[in-house]
């Protein structure tokens, strides 16, 4: 039990280290900007005095490591600075959008996880059957299509041709829950085949791996019924790979929704990020990237820790 705690502590430590490295990378990335931020804002004609004053105002005249520490300090206290494009505080800008993005990710997860895992188990049980081959080719196609292809087909079909759903997800904070759901249906439908494709293939692979192990063969030779083998023998051990699959896909969802958000003009964090990149609104880019990266790292960390907890074999350090 002691070694378990140490292992988890180790993972957490490395996760923290990764987060630190990422924040340094984001900070240095902006540091490496050709020319100065001030020049970009004030324009070519600015006098050296105004540039100096502005630099001082932004704190750009301090050495880099102090600015990094200040930036982190502000972040921890929830002060993300102000947007260069419209001067609004970034925290205010991010909060509703983060909520919208999480709403989309969670909605997609709720719809696709049970479906994907069910299909994956089914395909593993009847592997190499015609059904399995068909499923394999369908999911392979689904994951190799670009998201916007699926999105525009759905728009053409469901919103332009049939007029069932809005082609643009307009979401306001004062909307009721069901209106929000209505506006989110198309983005969810777009993400659905991609997420299900990935998840189903990973689940299938995990279960097939498991069914090949000697103890399953032993159970089969003892004459135990197929369903009992699956439920009592295979499933407990399949739990850890399945948890892993689910969380990795959640991580994909939070980050991978960028394209879908842009297609549907869904007011999420990803759309804000893309907008800010083209406007070169760097404080917003920094803040939203950090949120994305942190979510991604934390979810991966969670997957690691749960995998250790669910799989006794991993508890022994190699």
């Amino acid at each position, binding site marked *: 039990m002691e070694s378990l705690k140490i292992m988890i502590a180790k993972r957490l430590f490395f996760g923290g280290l*990764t987060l630190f*490295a*990422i924040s340094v*990378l*984001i900070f240095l*990335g*902006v540091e*490496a*900007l*050709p020319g100065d931020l001030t020049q970009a804002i004030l324009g070519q004609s600015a006098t050296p005095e105004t540039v100096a004053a502005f630099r001082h105002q932004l704190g750009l005249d301090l050495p880099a490591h102090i600015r990094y520490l200040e930036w982190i300090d502000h972040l921890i206290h929830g002060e993300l600075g102000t947007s260069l494009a419209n001067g609004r505080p970034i925290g205010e800008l991010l909060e509703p959008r983060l909520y919208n993005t999480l709403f989309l990710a969670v909605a997609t997860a709720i719809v696709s996880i049970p479906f994907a895992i069910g299909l994956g188990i089914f395909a593993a049980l009847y592997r190499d059957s015609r059904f399995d081959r068909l499923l*394999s*080719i369908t999911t*392979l*196609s689904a*994951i*190799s*299509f*670009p*998201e*916007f*292809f699926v999105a*525009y*087909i759905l*728009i*053409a079909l469901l919103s*332009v*041709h049939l007029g069932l759903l809005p*082609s643009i997800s307009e979401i306001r904070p004062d909307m009721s829950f069901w209106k929000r759901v209505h506006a989110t249906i198309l983005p969810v439908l777009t993400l659905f085949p991609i997420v299900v494709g990935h998840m189903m293939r990973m689940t299938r692979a995990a279960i097939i791996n498991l069914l090949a192990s000697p103890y399953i063969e032993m159970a089969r030779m003892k004459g135990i019924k197929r369903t009992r083998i699956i439920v009592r023998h295979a499933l407990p051990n399949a739990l850890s790979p399945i948890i892993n699959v689910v969380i990795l896909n959640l*991580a994909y969802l939070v*980050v*991978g929704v*960028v*394209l879908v958000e*842009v*297609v549907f003009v869904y007011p999420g964090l990803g759309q804000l*990020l*893309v907008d*800010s*990149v*083209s406007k*070169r609104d*760097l404080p917003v*880019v920094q803040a939203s*990237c950090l949120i*994305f*990266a942190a979510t*991604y*790292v934390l979810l*991966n960390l969670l997957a690691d820790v749960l995998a250790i907890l669910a799989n006794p074999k991993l508890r022994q350090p190699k």
Partner: protein
Amino acid sequence: MYQVLKLLRSAPTSAKIGMVAILINVVCAVFAPVLAPYSETQVVGDGWESVMWSTDAVKHDPPVILGTDHIGRDLFSRLTYGARNTIALALVTTALAFSVGAASGFLAAIMKGWVDMLLSRIVDILMAFPTLIFALVVLSVMGTSTTVLIFVIATLDSVRVYRISRAVAMDIEVMDYVEAAKLRGEGLWWIIKDEILPNALLPLVSEFGLRFCFVFLFISALSFLGLGLQPPTADWGSMVRENAAAISFGILTPLIPAAAIGFLTVGVNLVVDWFLRKASGIKDVK
């Protein structure tokens, strides 16, 4: 040659479909100037004219097969040139990622010790970064040029190639023949080139296919976001973006380049899938 043909004939239908898809794309890319009736940027008519076989099509000579785009350029010509631009860019990027990734992966597997340690830690950090986010940060800082694009995507990809080539090379490195070569006093480069590489080729070739798909989709995604190849260069991702507004009038123009992207990536994936199945099949027999 005969053996290759025999191997290709033994492929399942899905892989054959994939090969045909790849072939069509390659032909389009190589012979773009011959196949395209118009040039990449030539305006031939009004915006969003319909496809040749529809009733309200406008007559042109040579014919405008798939209609025109948002400012009246021939869509078919732009598609063929787009094949050339996007596929070339993706190939260059993947090749760069592979040379860097595979070389450092092999190096880490053979040298072990601090080289392996250092490279692997750098890779761990880069892997922890979500790819699209990383690309967006770099592109927002460095600006969008083709050089930056190639460099960023190749960096992201070489990290994944490093992982797999290191793992593959680790398995090969413990073999007796590598040990023999080392005792014989062969140099590092010789061991990589003549002992490791030939044995690592099969898994790496499948990986190349997968990586190419990833790079291709990634470039298309960035172009779609307006951060990839810049206009007026024809590129499938940006063609979808430029024509996206048409969809709300029920015009299907943006679906055509999007379908082209899907067609190629599905094709490559089908072939890779067959390859992987084949590779794992060999392992089972052993």
